[in-house]
C-alpha cells in the first residue's frame, strides 16, 4: 500500500518550484474565506513537501486539508508566477489520501454509478436513487445537500439525455464538418435542454453531430476526489469512443469535461504510467489525439461563426446578460472570449461584464455538499456580483456552476441561468 514515491516526478517538482511568495493567497477562493494557511495553495504545497520528505504523516487532519479546503478550481495554478501546478499536486495527494483513508460511501457509490453509466441501470431507477441521495420528502429533514437548497435542486431529466438524442444528426444542407458531442453527466441527467440546444444549433451551422449513446462520465470529478481506479475506467472508455482522428472535433458543453479531455488526460495518464498504475503508451497516444480534437462548444462555434445563419431581430425579448467564467474553462482551458463573443452576436442581448467574472462560484462539485459553510460564503460573493451587474440572465458554460448559481439566486428574483448556446438557439429559432 505505501509507495516509494508519493507522486510522479513532474508533479513532485511543483513542490520545489514554489518559492512561497504567497501571491496564490489572493487567487484562492477558499483561503479568502478562511484566512488560514492550511486553506492556502502555498500551505498545501508546503504540506505536500513535508509529506514527500516524510516529515509529516498523511493523517486525517492533513487529508481534510486537501479535501475540505480546496476546490481544485485551478485559481492558484493559473496565477502562479512560478508555474506551480497546484491542481496536479493536490489531486495527487488526494489520491494517496484516499488510498490510505478510503472514500466516503456515498461518493464511492456515486463514482461507481458514474463510471458504469447510469443509463444502463435504467432511468426510472436512476431518478429514484438520485432523489434519495439529494433529497426527497423524508430525507430532506435528515440529510442536507450542504450549501445547496434541496428543494431548489432542479428535477432530474425524465430519462437521460443520451437516451432521447438521435445518435447522428445531419445538417439539412451541405456538411461543413463532422463532430462528436461529449455531453457531461449534468446534461445527461439534469440539464437536457443544453444538450438539445447544442444538437440543434450545430446542424444549423452545417455541422454533423454524432452523440454516442454509450458515453459515460469523463472521470475527472472522480479523479480529483482521489478514486483513480474508477476514474481510469472512465478515461479508458471515453478514449475508446472519442479518440478518433477521422472527425473534425469533439465538442463539449461542460467546462470540467472539456478540461479533462483537452488538457488533463495526457498528463494524468503519463503520471499513472510513471507510477506503474497499468497505463500504456497507447492510452497516452489516444489521449493526445483526443486532446487535440477537443473544443468547448462555444470555442467551436466562435471559430466557425461565419457558418451561422443570419441572426435577425426576433421574437426573443431584449435581455441584459452577464457571463460567469467557470474555473475549468477560464483557468483550466484558458478560454474566456469565445462564449462572450457568442453572446455579443445576439442582437437582443445586451452584454454586461460583472465584477469578478472569473472568481469561482464556490460549488466545486461535491465540495458544496461536504463543506457548505465555506462554499456558501464564496457563492454569496458571486451572487452579489451577479446582482450588481444589473443582468437578468447569467450565462455560463458549466452545468456545475449553473446548478450552484441558480440554487443561490433569489428564487423570487428574475435572474435566470443559461448556457450561451441555449440563447443562441433561441435567437436562431426566431
Amino acid at each position, binding site marked *: 500500500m505505501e509507495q516509494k514515491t508519493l507522486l510522479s516526478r513532474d508533479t513532485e*517538482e511543483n513542490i*520545489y*518550484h*514554489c*518559492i*512561497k*511568495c*504567497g*501571491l*496564490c*493567497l*489572493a487567487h484562492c477562493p477558499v483561503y479568502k474565506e478562511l*484566512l*488560514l*494557511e*492550511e486553506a492556502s495553495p*502555498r*500551505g498545501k504545497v*508546503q*504540506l505536500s513537501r*513535508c509529506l514527500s520528505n516524510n*516529515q*509529516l*504523516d498523511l*493523517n486525517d*487532519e*492533513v487529508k481534510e*486539508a486537501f479535501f475540505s479546503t480546496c476546490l481544485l478550481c485551478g485559481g492558484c495554478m493559473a496565477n*502562479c*508566477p*512560478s*508555474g*506551480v501546478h497546484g491542481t496536479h499536486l493536490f489531486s495527487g495527494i488526494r489520491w494517496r489520501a484516499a488510498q490510505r483513508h478510503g472514500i466516503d460511501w456515498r461518493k464511492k457509490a456515486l463514482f461507481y454509478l458514474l463510471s458504469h453509466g447510469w443509463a444502463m441501470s435504467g432511468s426510472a431507477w436512476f431518478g429514484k436513487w438520485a432523489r434519495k441521495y439529494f433529497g426527497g420528502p423524508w430525507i430532506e429533514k435528515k440529510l442536507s445537500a450542504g450549501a445547496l437548497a434541496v428543494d431548489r435542486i432542479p428535477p432530474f431529466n425524465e430519462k437521460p439525455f443520451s437516451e432521447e438524442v438521435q445518435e447522428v444528426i445531419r445538417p439539412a444542407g451541405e456538411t461543413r464538418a463532422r463532430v462528436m458531442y461529449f455531453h457531461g453527466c449534468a446534461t445527461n441527467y439534469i440539464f437536457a435542454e443544453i444538450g438539445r440546444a447544442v444538437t440543434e444549433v450545430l446542424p444549423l451551422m452545417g455541422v454533423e453531430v454524432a452523440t454516442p449513446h454509450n458515453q459515460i462520465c469523463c472521470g475527472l470529478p472522480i479523479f480529483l476526489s482521489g478514486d483513480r481506479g474508477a476514474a481510469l475506467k472512465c478515461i479508458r472508455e471515453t478514449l475508446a469512443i472519442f479518440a478518433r482522428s477521422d472527425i473534425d472535433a469533439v465538442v463539449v458543453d461542460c467546462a470540467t469535461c472539456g478540461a479533462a479531455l483537452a488538457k488533463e488526460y495526457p498528463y494524468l495518464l503519463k503520471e499513472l504510467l510513471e507510477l506503474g498504475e497499468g497505463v500504456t503508451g497507447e492510452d497516452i497516444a489516444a489521449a493526445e489525439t483526443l486532446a487535440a480534437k477537443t473544443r468547448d462548444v462555444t470555442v467551436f462555434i466562435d471559430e466557425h461563426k461565419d457558418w451561422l445563419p443570419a441572426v435577425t431581430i426576433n421574437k426573443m425579448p431584449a435581455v441584459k446578460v452577464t457571463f460567469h467564467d467557470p474555473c475549468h474553462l477560464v483557468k483550466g482551458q484558458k478560454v474566456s472570449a469565445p462564449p462572450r463573443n457568442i453572446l455579443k452576436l445576439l442582437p437582443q442581448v445586451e452584454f454586461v461584464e460583472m465584477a469578478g467574472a472569473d472568481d469561482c462560484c464556490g460549488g466545486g462539485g461535491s465540495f458544496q455538499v461536504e463543506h457548505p459553510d465555506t462554499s456558501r460564503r464564496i457563492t454569496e460573493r458571486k451572487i452579489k456580483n451577479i446582482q450588481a451587474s444589473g443582468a437578468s440572465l447569467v450565462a455560463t458554460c458549466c452545468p456545475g456552476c449553473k446548478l450552484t448559481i441558480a440554487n443561490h439566486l433569489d428564487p423570487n428574483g428574475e435572474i435566470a441561468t443559461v448556457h450561451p448556446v441555449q440563447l443562441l438557439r433561441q435567437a436562431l429559432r426566431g
Partner: protein
Amino acid sequence: MERARIIQDMKSIVGKENVLSSEMQLNLYNYDASLIKAKPDCVVLPSSTEDVSRVVRYAHENRIPVVARGAGTNLSAGSVPIKGGIVLHFPRMNRILEIDVENQRVVVEPGAITLDIKNAIGKHGYLYQPDPASEKATTIGGNMAENSGGPHCFKYGVTSNHLLGMEVVLANGEVIEVGGKAHDCPGFDLTGILVGSEGTLAIATKLILRMVPKTEAVKTLLAIYDTIEDGANTVSAIIAAGIIPTTLEMMDNLTIKAVEQAYGVGFPMDAAAILLIEVDGLKDGLDRQVELISTVCRNHKVREVRVAKSEAERMKIWAGRKGAFGAVGRLRPNYLVNDGTVPRTRLPETLKQVIAIGEKYRLPIANVFHAGDGNLHPLILFDERDKDELERVHRAAGEIMKLCADMGGTISGEHGVGVEKLGGMELIFTKEDLRAMGRVKKAFDPDNIFNPGKLLPPESFVERNSAC
C-alpha cells in the same frame, strides 16, 4: 515553559478554536518567503486588540517569544519564529474600520490586505501610494513591520511616509496610540521608529494611513536596451534632466524571458534590459515629459521606446513587473533575493560586479529592481537540493551585500534584515550605531519577547547602556 502548558493557557485566553497546535499546523507557520524555517509552539488567531493584549501580557509574564505574522510574504524571515513561541496570525483581523474622506485617512486592522484597502478607498477617488509587488496578498500590518516599498516609492516614498498613526500593544500588554489622524503630534516620532521595526518593538492592532486624491493622469513608457549599462545610465540621466518619474524600474534579460513566459506581456525576448518608466500628475505637460524622457533614452542608445496606449496595456506591463519574482521561480526551483541599495549613479558598476559575482560562483543571477531608488534585487537562482550550490549561493549573497555597502549603499532597501541579513548589519553600522538601536529595543521590549533574534545582532542589544 512547556509547550503543552502554553497551548492550554492560550486556549483559555482566546478560546480553543483560535489556537492551532497540531503537527500539521506548526508545519504551516514555520516559513515565509525566505529560505529559513522554524516551528512555533503554537499559533494564535486574534480577533481583537484585547486578544493581542492578553496574549502578549501572558507571554511577557512567562518570557515566551511572540511573532506577529500577516500573509507570510516576508523575504528576510521576519515572520519565522526562530526561537519558537507564539505566532500571532493576523489575516482574520482584516477590517477596514473607517474611510475618513474628509480627513484623508483610512483606519484599518493589521490583517487587511493592502490591495483591498486601495480598492476600497479607490471607490472614493483616493489613493494609498505604497505598492509592494505583493500587494494583492500582503497585509498592511506586514507592510508596516517591514516598511515596504514598491515601484512607486521613488516619487511617493515608502510605507513610513504614509502611515501616520497606530494603536499598538507594548511588550507588557499595554495598549497605546502613537501618532494619529493629525500631523505633528508632539514628542518623539514613535510611529516613525515602529514602522520597519520588524515586529521587535510592539505589535500594531490598528493603523491610520494617509490617502490622497487620485492623480489626474499617468503615462507609462517601456524603454528597450541592448546593453544593461545603457539602461542603467539612462536612470541617472533622466533625473539629471530635472524629471522625477513615479517609477524607474529595470529588468535584465533573464527576468524578461521569465516574465514573458509567465505573462506574455510583449517584452522583446532578446533585449538586454528594459526600463519601465512612469510619470504622473496633471495631464498638462505630461506629453512633454514623455518626450523629454524619450530623448534621454535615445541619447543612451535605446533600441525602442514604447508608450502604453491604454489602461489595459499599462496593467499588463505592471502585472509582468509585479509577478517578476515569481516568474523567475520558473527558471530554477529556488532563488535568494538580495535587497541591497546603492546610490543610483553607482548602478552601472554595481551591476557589472553583481554579474561578475554570479560568474565567479557559477550561479545564474536575474536582475529586476527599482533602478530609480538604486534598490537592486539580484535573484540568485539555484536548487536547494544541491548542497554545494546552496553553499555557493550564500557566499555570493554575502558578497553582493558587501558590494552594496562598499558602494556607499545599504544592505536592505525594503525587505528588512530579519535573520537573513543580520550578518550584514556590521557592514554598514558601527557598534555604536547598533548600540543606539539596542537602546530603543530595550526601552520598548526589555525582556526581548517580540520577534527575538531578528533585526539586531545579539550583542548590540544585550549590553547595558554605559557611559564609556
